[in-house]
């Protein structure tokens, strides 16, 4: 692509990890400078620019800090690194794909998408069981199997055999994985829980036997012909078993040694637990069980696990939602051949902080560097401002709480409308279109929009309309639901009780350990920005419009691509699975009447006989209100105008009058003629029905461009540079 090679670089105005570098820190002092130097830009890109979700995870290492609070005898979690607690007391929990809560959430998303089921049909409980100790144990079993298999191979090979070194590498990796579990007590808890359960009940209660101790034996006929299970003699082992035992003894030794080495504060109970977990054995390893102590341990472990998991989920959820948002931003771009892949610059700072007047000059200087140059590699075209505060109007005043109700969500991780307005005022000078969505809560989901309409959203956006920056503000609704609030319960396990028959799982209702995730959502702004960014790539358009046989010119971006036009929204749609059965006609006519916002739809639709099970884009509008037609303006108009202005500035060497005239001339080599030649393409800059005119006001030296989109004009004024002409 010539001149402008990307039109989808996006700035994320949010914080991922406060310990990592952020935009303000990197930009530094800007006193007396107009823009940043290239070295500085390189540094900023090195730290903040990401081209994939994995890069975000790598660069920002999202982390939750945990520490034990002796006063309350509990585990505390926090996103900000607590400064008054010594480093050695803090345990970072990395929120990456191997973290099991995130794994569970991702599994929910993947399986729902694969099955094409709506929220109401999907059984969330099953997948969410992944965060119960049982599942953790299952994962460990897998690792364990691999370790045993590989260690066996390793011990069989002779010293000095190159293959042995290869095996060593493999084992190192596996141990590394395993050691993640046994170097912190928290990770050991599910192991301990399952371990006790196995020992007391034999295999997680699949074969309930009342908790009696089990002695292996064999079936035989007695002297009187009666059927008997005889206890197997201890010495009765086969050669193979001996070999296995040898391997296991070696492995146990290795694990024991590794545990000692990795842990600063080793403890025999945990050491035995780790050994038992990773080398569960064996006939020769029998030990006596003190049932009462073990049951008490089990119950307190389970309780502790439940509380700390609950605390952890509360803390990690906002971060996880952000990460899921970023993941979805990148996921929208799915093409066979890579073209203009969206990039994300993560500011990694709270937008409230960025909007302080002391910090705005730094943002301005940064944007001056990216957006006010004729180098378009770093130009930022979009911004994402998620989690706008959804302040609630209390209509029903309750004098006394008779029943336990919802605790009002403490909105600490939400950002204000005022900060958004301040930032928009700056961003509009650099023609950055900002996608914003309201905070994640039940009121902003598909369900709520389907039930209540969009009137509330329109009201809440009122402070942003009728302003010079309205054109650059895109309200995105609704937010996406990963786990609905009413289906977010997870059953961990049941407590145990000691009866005459030994240990038993309790069946009492209050002994079932359950925790509530209270809904996981993804801000609409991420998906909208990701989808729009994807639509900029001609390859993406080509892939999606293959069936419609639409012409796509590979050298032009999709700035003029109008998702609302024709069947475009049924050909290019998001990767998000459908959530509800759809909006009612009255709500749709309410949306169509005003053409408000960037609205996603979860409608039943099919094109050429193929059902669309994904969420589509229903409206793509910003907050610029056109009172003549009483609608809001389509977003593409703003970007086309920006694109034309930037190309014009570049081609005319900063608006030289002669060059402007050439630009618009009928010469087949002029930029306008070249655009007109591609007018039949899906991603044409000027399509059929559009026009691009200009007039020069000699007195004020202003060139006024009139860009008509299907008859509705958009004006753009540029100051002519006359130095060359006269």
């Amino acid at each position, binding site marked *: 692509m010539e001149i402008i090679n990307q039109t989808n670089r996006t700035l994320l105005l949010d914080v991922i990890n406060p310990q990592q570098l952020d935009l303000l820190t990197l930009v530094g002092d800007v*006193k*007396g*400078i*107009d823009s940043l130097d290239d070295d500085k830009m390189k540094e900023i890109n090195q730290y903040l620019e990401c081209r994939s979700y994995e890069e975000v995870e790598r660069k920002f290492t999202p982390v939750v800090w945990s520490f034990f609070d002796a006063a309350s005898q509990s585990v505390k979690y926090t996103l900000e690194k607590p400064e008054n607690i010594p480093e050695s007391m803090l345990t970072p929990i990395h929120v990456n794909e191997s973290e099991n809560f995130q794994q569970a959430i991702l599994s929910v998303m993947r399986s729902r998408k694969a099955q094409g089921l709506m929220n109401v049909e999907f059984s969330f409980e099953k997948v969410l069981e992944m965060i119960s100790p049982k599942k953790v144990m299952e994962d460990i079993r897998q690792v364990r199997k691999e370790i045993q298999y590989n260690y066996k191979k390793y011990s069989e090979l002779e010293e000095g055999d190159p293959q042995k070194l290869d095996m060593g590498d493999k084992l190192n990796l596996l141990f590394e994985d395993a050691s993640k579990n046994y170097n912190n007590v928290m990770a050991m808890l599910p192991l301990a829980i399952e371990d006790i359960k196995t020992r007391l009940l034999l295999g997680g209660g699949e074969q309930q036997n009342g908790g009696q101790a089990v002695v292996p034996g064999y079936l035989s006929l007695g002297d009187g012909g009666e059927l008997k299970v005889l206890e197997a003699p201890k010495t009765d082992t086969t050669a193979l078993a001996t070999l296995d035992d040898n391997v296991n003894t070696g492995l146990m030794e290795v694990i024991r040694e590794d545990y000692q080495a990795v842990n600063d504060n080793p403890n025999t109970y945990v050491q035995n637990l780790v050994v038992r977990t990773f080398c569960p054995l064996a006939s020769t390893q029998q030990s006596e069980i003190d049932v009462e102590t073990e049951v008490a341990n089990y119950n307190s472990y389970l309780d502790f696990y439940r509380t700390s998991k609950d605390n952890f989920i509360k803390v990690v959820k906002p971060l996880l939602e952000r990460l899921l948002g970023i993941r979805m931003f990148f996921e929208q771009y799915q093409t066979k051949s890579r073209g203009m892949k969206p990039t994300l610059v993560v500011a990694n700072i709270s937008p409230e902080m960025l909007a302080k007047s002391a910090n705005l000059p730094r943002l301005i200087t940064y944007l*001056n560097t990216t957006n006010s140059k004729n180098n378009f590699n770093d130009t930022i075209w979009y911004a994402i401002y998620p989690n706008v505060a959804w302040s609630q109007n209390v209509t029903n005043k309750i004098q006394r709480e008779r029943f336990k109700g919802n605790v009002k969500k403490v909105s600490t991780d939400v950002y204000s409308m005022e900060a958004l307005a301040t930032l928009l005022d*700056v961003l509009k000078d650099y023609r950055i279109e900002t996608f914003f969505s309201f905070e994640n809560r039940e009121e902003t989901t598909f369900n709520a929009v389907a039930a209540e309409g969009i009137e509330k959203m329109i009201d809440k956006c009122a402070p942003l309309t009728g302003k010079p920056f309205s054109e650059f503000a895109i309200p995105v609704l609704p937010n996406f639901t990963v786990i609905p609030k009413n289906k977010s319960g997870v059953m961990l396990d049941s407590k145990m009780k000691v009866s005459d028959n030994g240990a038993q799982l309790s069946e009492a209702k209050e002994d079932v350990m359950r925790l509530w995730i209270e809904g996981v959502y993804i801000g609409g702004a991420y998906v909208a920005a990701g989808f729009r960014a994807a639509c900029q790539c001609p390859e993406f358009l080509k892939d999606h419009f293959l069936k419609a046989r639409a012409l796509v010119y590979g050298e032009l971006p999709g700035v003029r691509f109008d998702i609302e036009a024709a069947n475009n929204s049924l050909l290019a749609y998001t990767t998000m699975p459908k959530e509800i059965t759809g909006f009612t006609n009255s709500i749709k006519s309410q949306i169509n009447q005003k053409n408000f916002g960037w609205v996603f739809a979860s409608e039943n639709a099919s094109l050429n006989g193929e059902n669309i099970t994904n969420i589509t884009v229903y409206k793509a509008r910003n907050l610029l209100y056109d009172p003549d037609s009483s609608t809001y303006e389509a977003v593409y108009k703003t970007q086309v105008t920006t694109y034309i202005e930037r190309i014009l500035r570049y081609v005319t060497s900063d608006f030289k009058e002669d060059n402007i005239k050439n630009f618009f001339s009928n010469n087949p080599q002029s930029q306008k003629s070249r655009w007109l030649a591609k007018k039949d393409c899906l991603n044409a800059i000027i399509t059929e029905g559009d026009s691009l005119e200009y007039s020069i006001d000699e007195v004020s030296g202003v060139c006024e461009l009139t860009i008509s989109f299907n008859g509705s004009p958009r004006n753009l004024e540029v100051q002519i540079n006359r130095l060359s002409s006269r």
Partner: protein
Amino acid sequence: MKLTGNWTGSRKEIRRHIQFSLLLTGILLSIFFCLPVDAKETQDDRNTVLFLLDTSSSMKENDPERLAIDSIAQFVYTLPTNYRTGFVAYNSDIAAECAPLESGQRSRIMELAEQAAYTGYSNAGAGLSLATEYLKSEGGGGKHIVLLSDGEILMEDDAGTNESRRMYAEAVEKAEKAGIRIHVVGLGGGMEDMDNSIFEAAERTGGGTYYTPQAFGIQSAIDTILNEELQIRQSTLAIVDADGETENISADLPYAHADKVRILLTSTAPIQNLSTNFQAESANQVNGGRYSLIELKDPYGTKLSIRFTGTAGSQVRINVVPEYRVIPKAEVFYTDVVPEDEDATAYHRTAEVVYTFYDLDNQDIQLWTEQTFEHRKFKVTVNGEQEEASLRAGQLTLTRTVEKTGGLKARMDYSGLPVNVTGVSHVETELAGPASLPEEEEPPYVLMFAGAGLLLALLAIVLFLIWHRIGNKNVPEPREERPEPGRYSYAGKLNIYITRTPDGCDIPPLSYNLFRLTEGRVISLGEVLERCGVAERFAGAETIYFKPGADRCVILTNNSDGTVMKNREILMKKKSYLLVPEEKVDITFEDETSELMLQYKELMPSERQGT
């Protein structure tokens, strides 16, 4: 001269020391020991006015439009609060009567007057007798009767006429004795002869006589009585020739803290759709056919706007009657000087008596400090002798030499002021006699040094205060530092981001549109910030100037001691630099704490339309 050791100097030498030191301390005394003195308050007597109206059938001819009734309204409502007002109407007998009422009940008089029908004969004798009776029973203060009639006394038969004449003459005599002044307004051809018996009442009681052949002249006669006979202070705000459209009048009311301000609209035709805009504690509006009265109680705004629709071709007059309730208070400042005379035993004492006027209801409010009252002549009777003084900053100052302790009785005559005044006019002040001179053997040095020390301390305080004032405020530098106005026009705006303030508060981004300024105008950053509503002061901002330059640029001149940076370069002081569109400048102010960044932005023609 020896300052220590045995004191052997002559009496004259000692006296010289004393003189110098006492002069100093004397002045100090005058500053520090001014004594507020209790004023003795006496309430003035109330005045009474009674309007006597002839409602005989001949009035139908002479006053077909019943303008007399409107004139009564104008008269009654113009009177200040300390006037009690009564009303009597007569034709063949008494047609309507109302004993004198307090100011708040005047609408009852108007009800009676509006109901009065022009009918029957003219029994002025009965009317005047009743009026005189009413006034005789009133207390002290001025008593006035205003009689409006269109002809001689005339009853059904001669006997009746004579009886009425007798009664009239008798009433006049009684009035004369009781000190009641009768003002007569004659209307129409029947009264053209000014020697008739009706007018005689005025001559005998010292009242005024007025004649008007046509009814519309009654108003000017009433005006004259109000202004000259009753000394009512009113000012005409506007005279509007109505054209049937809505008229908008806005005016300043320079009567802050007045007790009442009455605004009276009178016209020759009906006034409609009257609406007024003002700020006052309470207000009252009375509408008649051709008059409207707005009575503002305790007005606190100084702006007044009136909107009304007059009848085309008519004239509307708007009069304002301000009224104050006053209590004067006196303060005495003494200046003691050691007399030249060697034999004198006491200081030479001068007392400066300063009278300040306060609102009677809220004695914390000082009155008449406005420009309207400055240098107004004022008559004061002090201990029986009349003097003339003028108001300065709302105060009157009298100077007296005091030889011995004694009282000072002052009586204020407020008639020289452009407002109506009620309340207290007497102030009694006690003047303290001068102290004896100190004994000779008293060493003079203590006083001398104390005096000098105090004076120096005072001087230091004053200097400190002046310095502090200058230091704290963005006092503009002398005018000549301001750059000359430019030749060009502004074409852009300034986006301002205040990055640091002394108190650390966060000020949202500001934008100031330079385009709206006139061509060539020089504006300082201080002015820009002030216009943007920034309350914080930035030291030196007043001397960082902008003026328009060629090619849509602005020229920045820094005359302050702050640091201005552009493109990594510190701009030199008192040199001008060009700011091109999109360029930004960082400024650190003189306090080395406050900082801001400003960016000059161009405005496109379409953006300018909205400004």
